[in-house]
């Protein structure tokens, strides 16, 4: 990894990372070999490498939120999950399936969805290898 590339990756923000995920070019960073999701919190001498995000991950914990954050008032109830992609774990909302049916062990693909409340982008997950529509 060149110094130039590290400098460039240092400036990758969460919006840039969502752009890539939305373009089916999801990735994570290795900061001195430690996997992380942008924005990367690294020291001044750390090196950064870009690695492709695995195409599927596994739900390791989930909850259906009935009393929402006000920014998601029109989305409730919604299922939030922690999804293990191997090197990194992501936090997002699972759609394309009944929230109450989301369970640990469910295999999902990452996506970018928009809040029904304020249209802001966020990490989404849909069940893997199935034709599902993001609501």
């Amino acid at each position: 990894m060149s110094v130039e590339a590290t400098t460039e990756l240092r400036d990758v923000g969460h919006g840039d990372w969502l752009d890539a995920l939305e373009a089916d070019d999801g990735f994570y960073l290795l900061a001195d070999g430690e996997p992380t999701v942008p924005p990367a919190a690294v020291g001044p001498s750390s090196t950064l490498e870009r690695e492709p995000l695995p195409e599927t991950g596994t739900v390791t914990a989930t909850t259906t939120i009935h009393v929402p954050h006000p920014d998601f008032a029109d989305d409730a109830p919604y299922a939030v999950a922690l999804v293990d992609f191997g090197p990194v774990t992501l936090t997002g909302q699972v759609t394309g399936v009944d929230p109450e049916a989301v369970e640990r062990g469910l295999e999902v693909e990452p996506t970018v969805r928009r809040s029904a409340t304020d249209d802001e982008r966020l990490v989404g997950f849909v069940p893997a290898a199935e034709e599902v529509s993001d609501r």
Partner: protein
Amino acid sequence: MTEVLVAGVGATDFGEHPDRTGRELFAEARSLALERSTVSDTDLDALYYGNFLGATAEEQNHQAPLMAAGLAGPDLEATRVENACASGGYAVADAVRAIRSGDVDVVLVGGMERMTNLGTAATTATLAHAADAVHEVGAGVTFPGAYGLLADAYLERHDASHEDLAHVAVKNHANAATNPKAQYREEIDVADVLEAPTVADPLGLYDACPITDGAAAAVLVSPEYAAAQDLEPAAAITGSGRGTDALALQDRDDLTRTKAAEAAADDAYEQADIEPADVDLAEVHDCFTIAELLALEALGLYEPGEAASAARNGETTADGDLPVNLSGGLKAKGHPVGATGVSQLVELTKLLDGSHPNADAVPAATTGVAHNAGGTVATASVHVLEEVGA
């Protein structure tokens, strides 16, 4: 390690105080603490003050000088401490460190929060400021949601049930029933918990602490000052530990353990030269029922997975071997965020010196531990409190 003595403690009733400002609430707590300590406010060297929601609740940051007003002159240092729900515990930790350093001898430590004036939606949004704004709140995670994720992981790993969690709520409501300072003084049963509306599954309304207004304060002094003034402090802080973990749950290796609290407990026990087995009672950060189990395991009072049945088996109830949250805990006494860590010190001191209405449950207790957690335990403070002369 230098002992830090608790010269006096005080707190407001916890609950709804719609007509009282934050400064009025804290004034009551600090007056009680100073009066009971018999320490003159002109001797105060410093105030360490915990507060989290002030900017939203009262459009007031920079509360430390406000809360020190009228106490003493310009030599008094006043500092606000903010570590989310552990703000109060860290204010205590900073006070202990300052006295141990020899820089100061007399410290007022306190905390205050106003919350009920915000209502549920604004409180939910403001408490979420303690989570990772990018990775968690941006995905719609609320605090009940974050603890719902922790509960999901814990119950799965240890084959425990929502009913196990319900027993924690039942126990802490029973303790609060006889504590006049507590917000919820009604006993509940397991069915009440299991049938309550879901907030973030598996957690329901009765798994969660209430939204609370309140303030707490304590006067801490050095042994030299106590001797010179002929004070007779009832308790000493003999251990003060802190720990840190990743802010976002997605950056943790194991969702069923709280490593910040484990680290804080290790430090506190080492300083106090005690083992978990020496602990007679504990006040722990049960913002949700699941949090009490995580706390008891981080404190080494139970092995991983074994705290699940502690309340159900009567081990941590008032008549159990290790009473936990005799005050009613955050769950039923209430959780005015910035005050909570100091309130734990207030309650433990009164339980050890026999002046607490629930002290009859622990007549022979000499050693208590207080566990205060920030967010999903990304920060934690643990304090060991021992009866003086025991």
